[in-house]
């Protein structure tokens, strides 16, 4: 018989990761697995190290100890298999929306006409069609965030690292994006790592929710909603299991807020 160690195929594995900034211990012995093709939310209080964790997985930061596996290979730096949506957008202020969205492809050496065609598709998807030639300072916060989102989508990476990607969009757009995200997870075989502050959002979009404790961070709990995932998007918010999980998460997080 084959010796199969695990029955789930993990796109990303985080093993015993510690991270210290000069005198701040951000992560302590954190382990977490991200199943392929699923969306995992990372939920935790502000400053608990969510961005730090995501940047370590992206290969932008080196962990103090521990290791990261992406497709079972150790991470040594950024790679084409991962794309990042930055919490602070990280747009080039001197470049138009079109160039910003195409910039990931530009750095990969994709020819101009080809990368702009791809970028235009994603600009349309995030609803910025008429703003292709605007500059970031001419856009609202939510629109800038969508530029960052389109840029990450356009490089077609298998793993999307999204650091609070909907934090600056309005509630209506946010709900629309959450529904779009569900479609994206269903239709594309991509793995999503999704940082959010919103409990409702996490429960609504996730296959798996990892709750982090305040600094130094470890995973305190992993919740896997199961019952309502197959239901119509419109009915999820009324599902008893959905409401139940939201309550449960709030109960375990509220102790840290006080």
């Amino acid at each position, binding site marked *: 018989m084959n010796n199969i160690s695990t029955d789930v195929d993990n796109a990303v594995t985080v093993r015993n990761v510690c991270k210290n900034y000069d005198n701040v211990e951000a992560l302590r012995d954190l382990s977490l697995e991200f199943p392929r093709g699923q969306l995992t939310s990372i939920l935790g209080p502000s400053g608990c190290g969510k961005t730090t964790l995501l940047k370590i997985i992206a290969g932008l930061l080196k962990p103090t100890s521990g290791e990261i596996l992406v497709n079972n290979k150790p991470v040594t730096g950024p790679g084409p298999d991962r794309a990042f949506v930055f919490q602070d957008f990280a747009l080039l202020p*001197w470049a138009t929306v079109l160039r910003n969205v195409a910039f990931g492809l530009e750095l990969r050496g994709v020819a101009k006409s080809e990368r702009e065609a791809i970028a235009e598709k994603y600009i349309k998807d995030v609803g910025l069609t008429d703003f292709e030639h605007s500059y970031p300072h001419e856009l609202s916060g939510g629109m800038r965030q969508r530029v960052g989102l389109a840029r990450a989508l356009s490089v077609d990476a298998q793993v999307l690292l999204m650091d609070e990607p909907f934090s600056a969009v309005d509630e209506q757009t946010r709900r629309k994006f959450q529904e779009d995200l569900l479609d994206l997870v269903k239709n594309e075989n991509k793995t999503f790592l999704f940082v959010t502050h919103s409990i409702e959002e996490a429960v609504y979009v996730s296959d798996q929710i990892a709750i982090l404790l305040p600094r130094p961070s470890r995973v305190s709990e992993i919740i896997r909603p199961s019952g309502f995932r197959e239901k119509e998007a419109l009915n999820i918010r009324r599902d008893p299991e959905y409401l139940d999980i939201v309550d449960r998460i709030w109960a375990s997080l509220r102790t840290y807020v006080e």
Partner: protein
Amino acid sequence: MRYRSLFLNFVSASIVFGAWEIAGRIPVSFAFPTFIESMSAFWVLIIEGTLFTAYAETLRPLVIGVVISTVLGVGIGLWIGLSRAFDWLVSPIFIVMQTAPLAALIPLLIMIYGIGLTSKVFVVCIMAMPVIVLNTSAAVRNTPASIIEMGNSFLGSRRDVIIKIILPAASPIVFAGLRLGVSAGFIGAILAELKITPTGVGDIISYSRSIADYPTMYAAILSIILLAVVFLNVLERIEITLFKGTRRNYVSD
């Protein structure tokens, strides 16, 4: 809008020249000619062609010096901004250069390089380069970390990150340094002509002073200022065409 600023320029110029005319008429000093006297001397310099032959001489060390300072200065500044070790090694030289009393260095330069073009180019470079280097390195170091991180995460090579992210981000401050450097280069070029060998515009200034032809002396000084203003405007055009849009503000939230 455009006409309005032109009009304001005109007003401020009239005020300055009017004050000059009045001060010349009082007179503040017998060595201070009126504006009208200086302008007619200026006219004479032009129709006699003296001014043009003088600038043919003066522009040589100036242009060579400014070009060397720009290319080397931006290059070295970029390197300092990117490498801690190089910063530690090289920065002090430019800080010393910026504060060194140039007049004291000139005899030394003459001893080493003689009284020819080389020494004058050196004077221009000593004046122009430090501020270009120091501005460039500061600008490079202050590139927002998040857009560099973005470049790395989307697999930009070191070269791409420098050319497509760091340089455009730094360009407004680099050009501010270039403007200061070019102005200082002008001072250097004239200083070299006054202190090393009187040639070109420096010769007009020192000669007309020695024969107490103050209107001509002031006309020559005015011509330098005019040329510097033209030079700086050209630089601004270059910046605008080269780095269109980099003056836009950063947005992060």
